[in-house]
């Protein structure tokens, strides 16, 4: 049992923290939000220079091989700054997926591209009519002539708007499990429907019509790697949620001290004091579970990992809901405006709670994991 960070981990936290402070003022973020891409390629380069795009890439592919704790430190800081760059979708998740599949020279070159900050990949797995399921039901790949052709639809693809290469889950004949294919985003037959999400981050829905595709990893055998990558990404989101909640608690407590009504700070009302305390409690419970999730993310026992991460995401999703709602409520009218950053943190908190499985879904997953173990 040891909650201390290593020297390197502290240095990493400091580096990311400074980046957020310097490059992520609310004004700077505004101008990125309004730009056509919704984030900044220049800042992506900064992330690469700081080693953050290399962090999730294994050392054997030129990366830094960061683990769950390093990811947690980065994501917590990203949460406090409401970072818009698609690090989770376009670097972390594809890097985790590719490294778990351990697949050939092409995958290695993608990983190197991610590490260098030169390539953006995205993982497309959710299909229409799905909410949080992870296995494909509709998208199929078939062999035609020289190679594979992929047909189907994917929705809610994180970073799917910006990626140059898409890692797409599909079914193939004769295999029950999930297979993974890489397609170029500009390949003929790919249609992208990009959109901003409610919190200003970006995503896309994608349609594939007989798109030339390259298989990644064993046929029918990509499921476990996808699970692992999504679990790790869920743990990362938990940490980001904690960062968002830290920011909301801090802003709310400041506001309770400065906003005056009835001749005294609104924070003098016990009803509001208790609410702020409950926000803090939720945040601390979430922090504890995010730590457990960060450590579980490196666990290669799928059942143990799934249980710990489901428990963490359940806790974080509920906490994000409560803390987000109460932060808005305690700010009164100004809390529901677009102008104040509190509403932006609230929206990010909401998106986090609904990404990769909401609280109910995680609770079900946890219960099923327990039942399977019993």
């Amino acid at each position: 049992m040891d909650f201390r960070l290593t020297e390197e981990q502290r240095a990493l936290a400091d580096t990311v923290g400074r980046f957020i402070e310097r490059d992520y003022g609310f004004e700077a973020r505004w101008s990125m939000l309004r730009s056509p891409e919704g984030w900044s390629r220049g800042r992506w380069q900064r992330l690469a220079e700081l080693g953050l795009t290399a962090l999730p890439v294994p050392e054997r592919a030129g990366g830094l091989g960061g683990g769950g704790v390093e990811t947690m430190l980065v994501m917590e800081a990203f949460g406090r700054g409401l970072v818009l760059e698609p690090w989770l979708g376009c670097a972390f998740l594809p890097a985790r997926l590719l490294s778990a599949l351990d697949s050939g020279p092409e995958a290695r070159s993608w990983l190197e591209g991610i590490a260098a900050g030169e390539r953006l990949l995205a993982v497309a797995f959710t299909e229409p009519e799905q909410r949080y399921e992870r296995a494909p039901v509709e998208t199929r790949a078939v062999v035609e002539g020289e190679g594979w052709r992929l047909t189907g639809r994917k929705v809610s693809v994180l970073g799917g708007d910006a990626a140059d290469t898409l890692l797409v889950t599909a079914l193939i004949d004769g295999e029950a499990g999930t297979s993974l294919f890489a397609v170029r985003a500009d390949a003929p037959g790919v249609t992208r429907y990009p959109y901003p999400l409610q919190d200003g981050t970006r995503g896309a829905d994608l349609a594939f019509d007989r798109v030339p595709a390259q298989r990644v990893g064993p046929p029918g055998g990509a499921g476990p790697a996808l699970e692992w990558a999504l679990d790790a990404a869920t743990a990362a989101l938990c940490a980001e949620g904690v960062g968002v909640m830290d920011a909301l608690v801090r802003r709310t407590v400041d506001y309770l001290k400065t906003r005056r009504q009835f001749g005294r700070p609104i924070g003098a009302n016990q009803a509001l004091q208790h609410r702020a305390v409950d926000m803090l409690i939720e945040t601390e419970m979430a922090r504890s579970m995010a730590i457990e999730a960060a450590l579980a993310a490196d666990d290669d026992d799928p059942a143990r990992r799934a249980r710990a991460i489901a428990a963490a995401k359940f806790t974080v999703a509920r906490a994000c809901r409560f803390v987000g709602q109460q932060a808005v409520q305690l700010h009164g009218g100004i809390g529901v405006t677009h102008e104040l950053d509190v509403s932006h943190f609230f929206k990010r908190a909401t998106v986090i709670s609904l990404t990769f499985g909401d609280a109910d879904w995680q609770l079900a997953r946890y219960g099923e994991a327990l039942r399977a173990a019993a």
Partner: protein
Amino acid sequence: MQLIYTPEQQAFANEVRAFTRETLDPAVARKVLEGARLGREDFLGWHRSLHRKGWVGAGWPREFGGPGWDAVRQHIFDEVTADEGAPPLIPFGLRMVAPVIMAFGSKAQQARFLPRILSGEDWWCQGYSEPGSGSDLASLKCRADRDGDHYVVNGQKTWTTLGHFADWIFCLVRTASEGRPQEGISFLLIDMKSPGITVRPILMLDQEHEVNEVWFDDVRVPVDNRVGEENKGWTYAKFLLGHERTGIAGVGRAKRIVKRLWHVARQARSDGRPLIDDTRFRDRLAQVEIELRALEITLLRVLAAEAEKKTPGPEASILKIRGSEIQQTLTELTMLAAGPAALPYVREGEAGAPDVPWLSDEAFRFASGHYFNFRKTTIYGGSNEIQRNIIAQHVLGL
């Protein structure tokens, strides 16, 4: 004691439904059912149809042109029209300023303003809150200085709902600074076209324009436009807030949304099955429906009591608290039903919903936008914390 409708009440419900189906513009109904944002004319078209029928002014005495419905009929009307997708009647004129003018206004004010409120010719907005005076409304600073037979108004109001549509604003202004803050407030009716008024939009967190800042720069208002006595405005304002809280429960609309959610839960799929088979979700939906029923019966109790003693009592605050919470739960459940597909930012009134078959079901398109927007319901009309303070003090005597 009887909770089912009598044959006459049922006949009235049928009449309202038939009239609504015949008269309501289907394009407007579709917008309402989709939860799209309504324009000024969308509200007013329906208002005018009702006015022609003599159905505007529920709760108004007959002498002022109300239809003379009892509490149950008013409730039936709200429920049935909401169910059919009728836009709500904007409350600022009909339910807020009109009762004040009836109770405290001069005969001349009643003759001048009430018919135009009834007909929808004048759109009213509410100018109470200021940046520094929200919950503590009595601390308001917007000043009205007497100059002959005019007041000269200077200051700012904020959060003014649909002020950009309004012809008139009713304002609380400071006419004296001695004594308790409540004692120097007057109630003014101000023409929005008066020189010196500037309306500036405030974007809500779903990026929609719904509320405004209203600035007053040497705005001249005839003394004739003061309701009641100078410096007695606080009494009138409190009278009005009671009316606001009964209307704010939103039971009719909530019933429509519950119905829609059951439909959605049958359509949407989760883990390859209809979402309605997911007991976690179904239990949440069942629970909110039960809570809504409890609210509805409570509302009927309050309305019945009101019919006897006229002024809503502090128990009206219960309706505001529960009604707002239920509305929020419903927006949240809609968002949860959609899952990640609720998250794309789709501007109201724009096509381009994501490529998800059941998401093209209108109910989902604005799901998360509504969830965010509806955080307002526990803040406006006196925040739920303030409502709880009122109940604690005036109902429980704490």
